[in-house]
């Protein structure tokens, strides 16, 4: 069966047709290198600055605080590596959380093998960092705190404002990975008092291969990619003009549509959640149901494994994700679900539903109809189910 029901928007989104339309000329009639002398090229620079302004508006940032990169991963790397190499004489301690995206975790892991000390804050069973834990872990050598805004797997939204306040009281810089929250909800860098923030284009209906690092003007970092003087010397390389135009348009649309999306998608998500709880026994809702992205639902279905569910769902035209090891290339299940205190087998049996603006109300009904027989079949095959 063809893919009919896409429930994996936290993984990636289709590029909005209005974004595509705006990008297309930059492959042909507006192909020029913005660094070139002639007027036609200069016009491209203006278009880039307009896109920068649109992104700045999405974050309530200043235009000169927006830097274009190749994606969320590069922005996370640039923020963390850029600060630590700048401030390495001042200290060598970084604080992050156990449930970060691998772009943050593996950058920290690399640093911990190269003279830095990293503290990974635990989370409670709903995925929240405790601000008191952060206070306790700060040392004189702490130079950076990086804690994500909203989690990609469970949707839990961290008290970022409170956390950045704690950082600033001790004069420490605060970075947040806002890849999942930006474009879905209000992310105001002034209100949250953030020093650096990461966003990704393809999570907000823009093209892939495009990201942004917001960096306050007074925060100095060392670039990671060297070359020409692009992006004020912070990120060398001829600009990905179609990508930049794309994220600009995507940001503009997100500002206009995020409230509408929330109003429409939350009831669909809630309906799926309620439906599953009512029909299927022995399930666990993962994440914080009060402080959670309105499009995200993570649920563990006990006694069965996630990839098997995904395969049956795929046959019925549903695309979603699981925190099971088998849906990835490693043998460990999701580090996020384990950090919540789930047993390995519960993490293996998780499903993540992440909705987006092209989902319809009927999708929820169809899902609630299709999932229970799949669960029943897999449970009838499982050695754990009948032993209850």
């Amino acid at each position, binding site marked *: 069966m063809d893919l009919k029901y896409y429930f994996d928007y936290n993984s990636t989104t289709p590029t909005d047709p209005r974004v595509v339309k705006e990008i297309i000329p930059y492959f042909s009639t507006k192909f020029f290198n913005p660094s070139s002398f002639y007027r036609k090229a200069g016009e491209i620079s203006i278009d880039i600055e307009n896109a920068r302004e649109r992104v700045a508006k999405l974050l309530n940032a200043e235009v000169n605080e927006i830097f274009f990169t190749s994606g969320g991963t590069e922005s996370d790397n640039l923020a963390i590596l850029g600060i630590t190499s700048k401030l390495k004489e001042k200290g060598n301690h970084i604080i992050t959380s156990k449930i970060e995206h691998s772009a943050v975790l593996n950058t920290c892991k690399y640093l911990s093998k190269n003279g830095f000390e990293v503290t990974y804050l635990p989370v409670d069973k709903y995925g929240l960092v405790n601000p008191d834990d952060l206070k306790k872990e700060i040392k004189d050598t702490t130079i950076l705190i990086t804690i994500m805004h909203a989690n990609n797997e469970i949707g839990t939204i961290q008290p970022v404002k409170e956390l950045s306040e704690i950082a600033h009281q001790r004069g420490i810089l605060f970075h947040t990975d806002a890849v999942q929250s930006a474009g879905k909800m209000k992310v105001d860098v002034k209100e949250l008092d953030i020093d650096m923030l990461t966003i990704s284009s393809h999570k907000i209906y823009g093209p892939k291969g495009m990201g942004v690092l917001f960096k306050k003007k007074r925060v100095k970092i060392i670039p990671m990619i060297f070359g020409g003087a692009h992006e004020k010397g912070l990120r060398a390389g001829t600009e990905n003009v179609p990508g930049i135009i794309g994220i600009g348009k995507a940001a503009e649309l997100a500002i206009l549509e995020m409230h509408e999306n929330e109003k429409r998608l939350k009831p669909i998500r809630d309906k799926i959640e309620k439906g599953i709880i009512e029909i299927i026994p022995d399930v666990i809702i993962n994440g914080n149901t009060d402080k959670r992205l309105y499009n995200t639902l993570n649920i563990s279905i006990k006694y069965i*494994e996630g990839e*098997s569910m995904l395969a049956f769902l795929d046959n019925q035209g549903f695309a979603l994700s699981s925190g099971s*090891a*088998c849906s990835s290339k490693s*043998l460990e299940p999701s580090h996020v679900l384990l950090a919540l205190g789930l047993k*390995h*087998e519960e993490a*293996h049996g998780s499903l993540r539903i992440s909705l987006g603006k092209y989902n319809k109300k009927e999708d929820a009904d169809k899902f609630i109809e299709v999932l229970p027989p799949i669960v029943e079949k897999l449970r009838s095959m499982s*050695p754990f189910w009948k032993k209850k």
Partner: protein
Amino acid sequence: MLYSKKVMEHFQNTKNYGKLEDADGIGKVGNPRCGDVMWIYIKVRDNKIIDAKYETFGCVAAIATSSMAIDMIKGKNIDEALRFTNKAVAEALDGLPPEKLHCSLLAEKGIKAAIEDYKSKKNIT
């Protein structure tokens, strides 16, 4: 993840699953931590496996290999079944993705464990 047609066939249309009530041997292998647990039940008469079933908690590959393994040992005598290898089941399924080969190993272990269990119950050495 792309599986062969054979794997998907066995996964979707698997039979042979469930508990075998009067099993003569049960092989319990795998670890829920790793996401794969396989129980192999066998019924033996005159040294021959006359019936077999499985119960599996696991991914597509784990279920497909369980299903194929049961097909391959049913009707075989014990010594033949003991020569069953993970390679044979993977080949019969037209191959498995490299990171899933451990699932076929589980099927081999499960069958061997079930036969061991049968032998120890019957005091056969």
